[in-house]
């Protein structure tokens, strides 16, 4: 049994070596598919994490006050908002508190802000909503108060980001499906040509009584190997590239979304399985089609 598997393995390796160019093209196309898939995966996972973090602010409305607005004026606003059903609670955030929070969000680089002569941040009200769907209505009311400089409601921002990421993901899915089909066809073609170029061997195998399974196995294994090699290459590449991305962009992303990029180990653990599964599936589907079509019993 082990001998048989080894024999098939040897046959398919020899076959790939004999037709290096063909094998390379196929591996290349599967690798491209997997890399685009990785991009899709990175976008989805990171955006999901980031929006989760943003959603904590989803249910709050920031009402920035003018320099001229006193705390008494603010208390009046709080009174008028407090009795609304849509409002859960209201906090008055002084400019100093705001600065503290801002520093925290910069993490280890927060000390850079110590150098600022004056605090540019305004006082603000933080309105927490009971019901997010009423956010726009409450934000509207807040903006009618005099003494308000700006009303910032994150839901709009989050929605915008979600819409963009949604579109990106859809484009990715279309591209991936397209590439999967191309890759399957590539494997199909490779295996087909190999079946063709091995007609003599196959005929003799039939005449000396090789089982169908045994005749097909090297062909199927070749597809699987092509897929597995592509998965390996893709894994190394994405691991490297994602590592770089974290080095380069993690801090910026932290400032923007108040959460960093998803750690590389987490990503790669998931991607290893996805890559292997998809690479091997593409390889076996392509070769199964070719073998069924060109290696009839």
């Amino acid at each position: 049994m082990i001998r048989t598997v080894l024999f098939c393995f040897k046959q398919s390796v020899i076959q790939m070596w004999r037709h290096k160019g063909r094998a390379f093209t196929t591996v290349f196309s599967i690798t491209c598919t997997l890399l685009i898939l990785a991009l899709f995966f990175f976008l989805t996972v990171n955006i999901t994490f980031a929006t989760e973090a943003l959603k904590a602010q989803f249910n709050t409305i920031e009402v920035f006050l003018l320099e001229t607005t006193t705390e008494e004026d603010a208390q009046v606003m709080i009174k008028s908002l407090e009795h609304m059903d849509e409002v859960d609670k209201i906090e008055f955030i002084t400019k100093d508190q705001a600065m503290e929070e801002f520093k925290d969000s910069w993490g280890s680089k927060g000390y850079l802000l110590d150098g600022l002569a004056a605090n540019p941040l305004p006082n603000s009200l933080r309105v927490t909503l009971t019901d997010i769907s009423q956010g726009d209505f409450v934000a509207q009311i807040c903006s009618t108060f005099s003494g308000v400089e700006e009303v910032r409601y994150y839901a709009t921002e989050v929605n915008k980001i979600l819409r963009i990421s949604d579109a990106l993901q859809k484009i990715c899915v279309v591209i991936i499906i397209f590439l999967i089909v191309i890759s399957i066809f590539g494997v199909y073609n490779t295996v087909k040509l190999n079946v063709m170029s091995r007609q003599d061997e196959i005929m003799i195998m039939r005449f000396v009584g090789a089982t169908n399974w045994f005749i097909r196995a090297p062909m199927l294994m070749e597809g699987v190997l092509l897929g597995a090699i592509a998965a390996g290459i893709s894994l190394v590449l994405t691991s490297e590239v994602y590592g770089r991305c974290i080095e380069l962009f993690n801090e910026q992303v932290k400032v923007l979304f108040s959460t960093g990029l998803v750690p590389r180990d987490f990503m790669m653990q998931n991607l290893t399985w996805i890559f292997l599964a998809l690479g091997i599936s593409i390889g076996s589907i392509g070769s199964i089609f070719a073998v069924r079509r060109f290696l009839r019993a």
Partner: protein
Amino acid sequence: MIKFEHVSKIYLASDGRNVGLEDATIQIDEGEFVFLVGPSGAGKSTFIKLITKEIDPDEGDIYVDGEKVTRLSHRRIPQLRRKIGIVFQNFQLLQNMTVFENVAFAMEVVHLTGRTIKRQVPTVLQMMGIEEKADRFPKQLSAGEQQRVAIARAIVNHPKMIIADEPTGNLDPDTAWEIMQLLDMINQKGTTVVVVTHDDKIVNRMGKRVVAISNGRIVKDSQEGVYGYDD
């Protein structure tokens, strides 16, 4: 060993019906040496393809080694083929493999171990008188030598019968006679041998059983026969 009972095979081609074999009934016993003769298009190759289940008959039953070939499932065809060693007119050797590898290939694909292969291949090459050509490639061999390799490959897995479709068709008379002697030797060791040939001199000289086919019908079957199918 081989039994045909009222076997008919009609090919349906675009230009109409071609009779391959018609109502053929014959029995070949274990250990026999049989020549199959007849004009071109008579149905000799059809007869052989029916034995190896390359094709199925339209009517009748075929038995090989006690098994009803006509009822054999596709999955069991390899088992049937392992009982039969086949030799072709054009040798059918793999050009990118050496003599040794060509013979070993037939053993590898039926899952024999490396040790058996290393022991068995030189033995059959020696039997065929080409042991010192083991590392050559087919195109570095004469036609007669290539056919010896093909026979070595056919017998290496110890089949119960050897079937040769015009094995000497591409050979000069002397070489043809040598090849026939090798097949006779294999037969002496107990293997059933069926040889399709057009070579009347060889048939007459060997004095074996001769079965003649013409237009798909078995027209003559004689022990120690001579070549001929016209009577």
